[in-house]
């Protein structure tokens, strides 16, 4: 769920833009020109994931995949998430135009953390990678929801109730996302393991 226009105090949304642009610029510097297609693909995947609905309980949730983006792109994940958020806002109005910066920070920083943890914890052991992938995928959602609640609460004590409800509403997403991340990682290990290699130290042998 993305924050729409008019919710955040103007100082916070402007600060979100400043922070988002600064981190995105740093993130862009980490990407080699050869990796641009990979970043663009993952950005589009991040975008399309919001259209995939998974039925759970009485309702259905759509995927967020900040953790997976971090796993796939490492330091480049923040740029990818910012672009995906911008496109979602411009095309679908998922998240407001004035809140793009804040939304990018909300999803992008968890993606970076998930990516770092995945790289630090996963060894060259397939089953371990799957577990670490699932956990960091879930962690990405958890941290994003935490950031969402914190951002909402910058609006004052009136927003505490909404922040709490938003957190509870994301519990099913957390469960689904953990499962999906593990499955995607195990799928990629079997089918195209080079996508999981550190994109910034090893060259991509994409074909």
């Amino acid at each position: 769920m993305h924050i729409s226009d008019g919710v955040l105090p103007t100082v916070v949304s402007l600060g979100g833009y400043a922070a988002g642009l600064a981190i995105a610029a740093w993130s862009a510097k980490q990407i080699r020109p050869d990796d641009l297609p990979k970043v663009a693909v993952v950005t589009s995947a991040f975008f399309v994931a919001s259209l995939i609905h998974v039925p759970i309980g009485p309702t259905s949730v759509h995927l967020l995949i900040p953790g997976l983006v971090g796993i796939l792109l490492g330091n480049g994940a923040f740029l990818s998430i910012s672009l995906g958020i911008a496109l979602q806002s411009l095309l679908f109005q998922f998240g407001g135009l004035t809140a793009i910066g804040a939304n990018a920070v909300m999803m992008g920083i968890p993606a970076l953390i998930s990516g770092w943890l995945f790289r630090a914890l996963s060894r060259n052991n397939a089953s371990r990678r799957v577990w670490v992938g699932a956990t960091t995928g879930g962690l990405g959602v958890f941290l994003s929801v935490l950031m969402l609640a914190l951002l909402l609460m910058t609006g004052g004590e009136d927003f505490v109730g909404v922040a709490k409800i938003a957190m509870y509403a994301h519990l099913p997403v957390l469960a689904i996302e953990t499962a999906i991340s593990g499955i995607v990682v195990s799928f990629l290990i079997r089918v195209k393991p080079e996508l999981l290699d550190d994109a910034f130290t090893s060259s991509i042998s994409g074909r």
Partner: protein
Amino acid sequence: MTSLPQVITLPFTYLIFVGGGTVLFWLLWIFLTRQIQSKKKFTSSSEERDWRIPIIDSQSGGDSLFHRWDPRIKLCALVVFMFCVASLTQLFWASIALITAFIAVAAAHIPFQYPLRRVAAMGAFLSMFLVVMPLTAPVKPADTRIVFEGISWMQFNLRGFFLALLICLKAIAIALLTEPLLSTAPFSVTIQALARLNAPPILCQMLLLAHRYIFVFQDEAGRMLKGMRARGFKKQRNMETVRTLGNFLGMLLVRSFDRTQRVFDAMTARGYTGTWPNGVVFRVYPNDWIKGVFWVMLGCGMLICDRWLNAPV
């Protein structure tokens, strides 16, 4: 609002009416959004989402004050105006902003279905505020509360309700304005304008690339879903569905990556070095500045009125 008593007690039967009304409104909302979607849908299955992605610059062929506006000044002026709207604190001025946004959409000759689709996309998020905030906003001494007889634990705080309403008005106003901002020029021209405004070139290029690839992805995803359905896949509430969708996402990544890599290689072979040729020539006329100054003044004026004038309502 000072004339209102602090606690309004209503008979319990009112609650049933209010609750029933909310449920009815909700059902109507679902019905309407279904209607909007089904009009454009060509598939018969109702369980699948509409995979089509809206064309961002669908109205760029038209002609209006917004179409003839230099995209650079349009971007700056309207974004400043949007931030002014987002900072409003009074219901009256937020309503004025909403009316202004409606007039802008009409002046840009954009059919109302496009901006309304944006508003519908925010429905869930905004209705969460409308429902939750009146019930959870902490009660301050001057607040008016509505209490229903017999249930004292549920207090409907009017201040929370008005705050949620304010958020909705501002969000809808800005969402409506996004249409005149983006759809009155081709997307590539808007991005060019962004680049001329000294936005980081890599951001602009990646935005264009990713926007292209979304449609590649959509195409690929649509084909895969068709194949899955032909093999009898049906979304259910079980682990098998989750597993299948996970593999679906993984396969989508793998296929799209292979395809994108080929496209990128082809681009490199044709001399792509990381920059697009500059095809667009921007010209600024006095008219452009007048419109820009008008919108910035309008935004700032509303913000000043909002802070220093007590609105009549």
